[in-house]
């Protein structure tokens, strides 16, 4: 195989990996949108908040240290050496469930039957609140996330691919980040688990029922409010996974919440109501933007990854407004 062709494969592979990371965030959006028709703008911030909390627990930070120091004139920052990663993840999950409950109790409950745009505005408010709250609780500095996932280029893969090139060609093998491979594996497991849960359990069935028809769900004895807490908890769990992956990749920092915006074109492609759609949409965006940058990017000055996804989404909207897998919008006359 010629080095050019191998380079192309490498670009596509890395695109797929990046795509899975986008899909992870998009998944959280889809879950909440399906169950409650709310476009949760705060999903990205939830990922950031989960990552901050996890690192905080792990390293043994004192929550609200700045606030405590400012009020009491103390100088606390850490309460010890931190804790075991597994325990920290469990505790963070607990925090996310608590958060889901609070959101239902103080926001959603009061907005039942309101227009979607009002709920959307509420989630924007929520996003800004959480951003500030996360800062206040754990500090605004960039943190390093290490949950023990391996990272860095894979030498094994480099060696394997080196032999693929034609004899005598100047080729040094493909680069692939091990962390990305892990992220892909975890994302796939997550989707399988979510699918099984929603297909074969009582609560899963209740989730699908609520997503399908609120009135009918009430009639069979499903409490919408408790289902919303469950949905937001699951979305919180997905946010935690996304936060861990993105945090391990690029550090826990404010820009993490902006990856939520990248999930938008993914959703437009995949459809707001489809879990497989979120995955495939993510992959298309990931591969698309890497390929575009590789092939055409150089000719027009590069850095196309910043905007390519949005333009692609715009293009898509013209032909399939409901997305690849979304429910068809049929107007009955």
């Amino acid at each position, binding site marked *: 195989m010629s080095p050019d062709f191998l380079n192309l494969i490498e670009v596509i592979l890395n695109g797929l990996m990046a795509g899975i990371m986008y899909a992870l965030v998009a998944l959280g959006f889809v879950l909440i949108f399906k169950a409650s028709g709310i476009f949760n703008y705060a999903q990205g911030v939830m990922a950031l908040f989960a990552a901050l909390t996890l690192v905080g627990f792990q390293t043994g930070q004192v929550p609200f240290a700045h606030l405590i120091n400012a009020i009491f004139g103390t100088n606390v920052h850490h309460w010890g050496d931190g804790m075991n990663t597994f325990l920290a993840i469990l505790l963070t999950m607990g925090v996310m469930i608590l958060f889901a409950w609070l959101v239902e109790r103080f926001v959603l409950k009061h907005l039942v039957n309101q227009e979607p745009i009002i709920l959307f505005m509420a989630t924007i408010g929520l996003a800004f609140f959480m951003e500030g709250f996360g800062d206040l609780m754990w500090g605004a500095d960039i943190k390093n996330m290490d949950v023990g996932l391996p990272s860095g280029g894979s030498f094994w893969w480099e060696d394997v691919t080196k032999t693929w090139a034609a004899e005598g060609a100047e080729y040094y093998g493909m680069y692939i980040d091990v962390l990305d491979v892990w992220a892909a594996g975890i994302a796939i497991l997550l989707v399988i688990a979510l699918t*099984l*849960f929603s297909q*074969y*359990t*009582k*609560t*899963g*069935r*209740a989730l*699908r*029922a609520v*997503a*399908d*028809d609120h*009135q*009918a*769900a*009430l*009639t*069979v*004895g*499903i*409490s*919408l409010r408790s289902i919303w807490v*469950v949905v937001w908890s699951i979305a919180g769990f997905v946010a935690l996974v996304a936060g861990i992956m993105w945090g391990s990749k690029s550090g826990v920092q404010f820009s993490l919440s902006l990856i939520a915006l990248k999930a938008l074109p993914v959703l437009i492609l995949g459809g707001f109501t489809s879990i497989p759609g979120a995955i495939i949409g993510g992959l298309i965006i990931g591969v698309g933007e890497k390929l575009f940058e590789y092939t055409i990017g150089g000719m027009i000055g590069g850095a196309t990854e910043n905007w390519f996804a949005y333009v692609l989404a715009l293009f898509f909207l013209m032909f399939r407004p409901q997305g690849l897998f979304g429910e068809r919008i049929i107007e009955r006359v």
Partner: protein
Amino acid sequence: MSASADRAAKIGDTMLEVKDITLSFGGVKALTDISFDIKEGEIRAIIGPNGAGKSSMLNVISGFYHPQQGEVWFNGKKRGPMKPYQVARQGIARTFQNIALFKGMSTLDNLMTGRMTQMKTNLFWQAIWKGPAEKEELEHRERVEHIIDFLGIQAIRKTPVGRLPYGMQKRVELGRALAAEAKLLLLDEPMAGMNLEEKEDMCRFVLDVNDEFGTTIALIEHDMGVVMDLSDRVVVLDYGQKLADGTPDEVRSNQAVIDAYLGVSHD
């Protein structure tokens, strides 16, 4: 023993009673001082011309509407303001005039949601799936299969209900209500829009359910032939007021009812 005496023996004490229900939307009065009762084991019809307040009455009973005045008594206890899902958990199941099924889910799944009120395992076991959750799931699956047999809908078990014809959807909705094993079943126009054959099937199901499971049934229906054949007692509403209440024969010969249905000349 005659058929009617046989019937009378099956009917027990008052199960549900509404007292002086008044419901209004803004300035429009949908129901005014309505009182009637439903006895255990009976088939109770609520009839009346369009806009009489029949569906509103059903919505009050099932917790979708909250009346401004009046009380609902169920099983001898006065009921506070309740959410529809709480009413469902108390053992009152219902169907809707314009079908409220989960259109994207299969017939089987729709019926399984009907078992929701009966299932007990917690989220932890469900997430693990093995153990109690699996056992429970299988148990309830068996009950649901019985209902599928009973309604003769084996052929559409796996079909998404959105794709079924109207008559079948009505039948699935009845199935879901049956799956709840409710004490009281509220049917809002179960035969609307059906052809004769489908109506006959549905009548048979209603009678069988009442007979075999002893389920108390309250139904709204426009087809007078069906109502007179099926029901033990009939309450007639018109413009939100109660016109008459009694056996089909009594109601049929009531002058106010005849006037409401046929119209009176105002001369």
